[in-house]
C-alpha cells in the first residue's frame, strides 16, 4: 500500500447484513484519523456476494454518501473488504540453492524463491487476492528474514488466496459505480485478525473467527504468521432460518426472537417457560418456548463451529494456538458463544475487543472489519516494500495530481 503525505481513504465492507464505510485521513502513511462513518442496511447481497447490482449499489452508495457527508471530505480511494464462499486458498512452496560462493543469502536468492513459490497457475476464472508468505526456512530452521544469513538451501511457502473473478469484480464495480477506485482489496478475515490480535498473540498462535450474517470467515495465526484463511458460507442467517422453520414464524420474526432470546448454550431449565413474540399483547402476538429457541440456536451454533473445525483440519493444533479463539462479527454477540467455541476447539475463547485507540461508538463488532482494513493497511504501509500496480498515462497522472492537490 502506498504512503503519501495525506490521503482520504474509505474502508468499505459490503456485507450480507449491512454496508459499513469508514472514512479515514491517513497522514504520511502512518497515522490514522477516522473522520466519518456511514452504515446502511445491505440489499442485493447474499453470502457476501452481489446478486442484485442495482440494489447493492444503492445501499453501498448510500453508506458512502453518508460517510462523506459526516467526514466533510471526498473519499479519494477505497480499500475494500472481500469475503464470500467463492474464496479459496492453497499452499505452495519452493526452494533454491543459495548461489553465492560463501553461502550468504542475497536479495536475489530471496526474490527467486519467492517468485517460484508464487508461480503456480490458478484455474480459469480465478483471481489472486492475497499472497501470504510463511517464514523462510534456511537449512531447515525458520528465519523471519534470510538475507545476509549463511546457509545452503532456502525454502519458502505461500498461502495464496484467490476468488471467483466475476464475483470479485462485481464487488469492485459496486464501488466503481460511485466513481471511486478500489486501491486495495483486503480479505475480511485478515482485516479482523489485524485489528483484534496483537503481535504477541499472533506469535503464540490465535484463531480469529468472524461470524457474519451470511458468511463465517476465519484466520489462523502461528508463529506470528498467517497459516491459513478460509470462509464458510454459513452465518447468523442460518440460525434465523432454523428458528423460522422450527417455530413456524417469518424470517423477520425469527430474527427478532434470535436477537432477544437466542443463545449458543441452553440455559433455561424450565421447559414451560415461554416468551412472547412481540411482547406488546397486540393482535397476533404469540408465545414460544424459550427452551426451543435456545435449543435451536445452540445446536446450530455448535454445528457451525464444528464444521469450521473440520474445515481447518490437521493444520489446527490447540497446542500451537496459545492465544485461543477470538470471536467477532454480529453473530458473536450470541450469549454463551465463547463457551461453545471453547468446548469445540479445546481452547480459551473470547469476544474480540477493539484496541484502545478505537472510539467507543466504533467498538461494535459491526465495525471490526472496516477498522481492521485500516489496521491492515497501515501495517502494510510500514512493512510492504512492493508498491501496487498504478495506472499510468497523462490523464491518470493529471487526475492524480489534481486529486492530491
Amino acid at each position, binding site marked *: 500500500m502506498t504512503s503519501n503525505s495525506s490521503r482520504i481513504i474509505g474502508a468499505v465492507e459490503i456485507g450480507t447484513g449491512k454496508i459499513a464505510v469508514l472514512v479515514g485521513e491517513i497522514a504520511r502513511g502512518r497515522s490514522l484519523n477516522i473522520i466519518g462513518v456511514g452504515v446502511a442496511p445491505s440489499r442485493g447481497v447474499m453470502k457476501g456476494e452481489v446478486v442484485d447490482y442495482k440494489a447493492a449499489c444503492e445501499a453501498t452508495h448510500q453508506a458512502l454518501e453518508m460517510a462523506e457527508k459526516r467526514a466533510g471530505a471526498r473519499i479519494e480511494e477505497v480499500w475494500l473488504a472481500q469475503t464470500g464462499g467463492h474464496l479459496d486458498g492453497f499452499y505452495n512452496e519452493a526452494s533454491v540453492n543459495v548461489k553465492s560462493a560463501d553461502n550468504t543469502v542475497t536479495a536475489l536468492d530471496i526474490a527467486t524463491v519467492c517468485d517460484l513459490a508464487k508461480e503456480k497457475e490458478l484455474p480459469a476464472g480465478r483471481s489472486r487476492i492475497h499472497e501470504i508468505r510463511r517464514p523462510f526456512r534456511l537449512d531447515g530452521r525458520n528465519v523471519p*528474514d534470510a538475507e545476509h544469513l549463511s546457509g545452503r538451501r532456502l525454502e519458502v511457502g505461500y498461502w495464496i488466496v484467490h476468488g471467483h473473478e466475476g464475483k470479485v469484480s462485481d464487488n469492485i464495480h459496486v464501488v*466503481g459505480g460511485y*466513481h471511486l477506485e478500489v486501491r486495495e482489496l483486503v480479505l475480511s478475515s485478515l482485516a479482523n485478525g489485524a485489528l483484534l490480535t496483537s503481535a504477541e498473540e499472533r506469535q503464540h498462535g490465535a484463531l480469529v473467527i468472524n461470524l457474519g450474517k451470511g458468511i463465517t470467515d476465519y484466520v489462523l495465526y502461528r508463529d506470528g504468521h498467517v497459516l491459513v484463511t478460509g470462509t464458510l458460507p454459513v452465518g447468523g442467517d442460518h440460525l434465523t432460518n432454523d428458528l423460522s422453520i422450527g417455530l413456524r414464524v417469518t424470517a423477520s420474526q425469527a430474527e427478532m426472537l434470535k436477537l432477544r432470546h437466542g443463545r449458543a448454550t441452553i440455559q433455561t431449565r424450565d421447559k414451560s417457560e415461554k416468551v412472547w413474540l412481540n411482547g406488546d399483547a397486540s393482535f397476533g402476538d404469540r408465545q414460544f418456548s424459550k427452551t426451543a429457541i435456545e435449543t435451536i440456536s445452540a445446536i446450530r451454533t455448535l454445528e457451525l463451529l464444528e464444521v469450521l473445525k473440520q474445515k481447518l483440519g490437521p493444520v489446527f493444533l490447540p497446542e500451537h494456538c496459545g492465544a485461543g479463539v477470538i470471536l467477532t462479527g454480529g453473530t458473536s454477540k450470541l450469549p454463551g458463544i465463547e463457551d461453545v467455541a471453547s468446548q469445540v476447539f479445546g481452547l480459551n475463547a473470547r469476544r474480540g475487543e477493539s484496541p484502545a485507540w478505537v472510539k467507543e461508538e466504533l467498538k461494535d463488532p459491526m465495525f471490526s472489519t472496516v477498522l481492521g482494513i485500516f489496521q491492515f493497511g497501515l501495517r502494510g504501509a510500514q512493512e510492504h516494500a512492493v508498491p501496487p500496480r498504478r495506472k499510468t498515462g497523462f490523464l491518470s497522472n493529471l487526475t492524480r495530481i489534481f486529486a492530491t492537490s
Partner: protein
Amino acid sequence: MSAVETISDRSAGRSWRDIRQEVTSLAMSRKGRFRRRLEWFKLTALVVLAALAGWGLYSVVHSWETDRSGLATAVHSDPVRDIAVIPDGVLTKQWASDALGLPKAASLMALDLPKLRDRLLDHGQVRVAVLRRKFPDTLEVTLHERTPVARVQASDGDGLPKQLLVARDGVVYEGFNYDKQMLASLPWLDGVRLVRHDGKYEPIAGMTDVAALLSVTQLEAPHLYRGWLIVSLARLESRDEIVVKAQDIPEIVFSRKRDFLRQVAQLDYVVDKVRDAMAEPTLLSINLALEGQVPVKMQNTPAELAKLPAANFTLQSNQTKSKRDL
C-alpha cells in the same frame, strides 16, 4: 520483506488488479455520475488554467523579445553612429545604410534586428545577413551575397526592358555594383516565365541544373563557355533538356539526366573534329542528350566528313573520362 503481500506487478498469473474498474455511465448511480462530471470539470479547469498560464508566459516572453522601446528604456544605450559592413562580395556600406533606412538618432538597443535583417534579405543579392550590436554605438552587418550565373530580361512597370540577374538557387534580383564586363559575360536565360509575388520575382525552377552546366563549362571548357549567348529552359520540364545557343552553333542540346562533364567533353570533341575536317564549318545543331551517340546537324556537309566513321562515345566499363581527355 512483508509476510502478507498485496498483489503487485510481480505476481504470477491473473490478479484482482487486472480487473477493469471503470464502469459504464449506465451502471453508475446518479451520485457517481455527478462525481465523474465534477472530476472532468476540475480536470478541464486545470487544463484551461495551464493553457492560460502558458499563454501568459508566452505573451510576456514575446513582449520582452519584441518590445524594443521597453528594452531601450530598460537598458541605457547610445544612438547608432556607425554601421560596420562586412561584405563577401560587391555590396557597400552606403548600400547597406540605404537598405536599412535607420531613423536618425535611433538608439542601438531600440533597433529591431530581425526586422532590419528582413529588410536586407528583401534584396535578392543578399543571401545571409547577420546584424549585431557593438556597444556603445555601432551596428555591425555581415553580408553573404549571391553570385549571378545568368541574366534574364524583364520589363519594368513602364514596359521598358531591364536586366535582372539569376543566382544558382534560382533567385532573380537586380544586381548592384557588379563589374559590367563580368555581367556582359553571363549568358541570357530564355524559356522562363517570371512570376511576381509581393513585389518580388519567384525563384526559377531548375536553375540548380543550369548553374551546374554553366559552372562545369566555365571551369573545364572556358573557350566554349565564352561563345554561349543564350541558355533556354523551355524544354527542361518536359524533356529534361537544356538548350544552349552559342555564337557559332545555333543549338546545343544538353540533358540534365546525364553527367554534364561528359556532355561538355563530347561537345568539345565534336567541335574539334569538325574544325579539323573543315576550313569553315557551319554547325547547325549538336544533340548531347542521347546516350552513346551525338547527332550533329551541319550545313553543306562535305563528302569526306560524311564518310568518317561515327565516333563511339560510349565508355567501356573499364574506361573513365578524365579532365585531361578534354
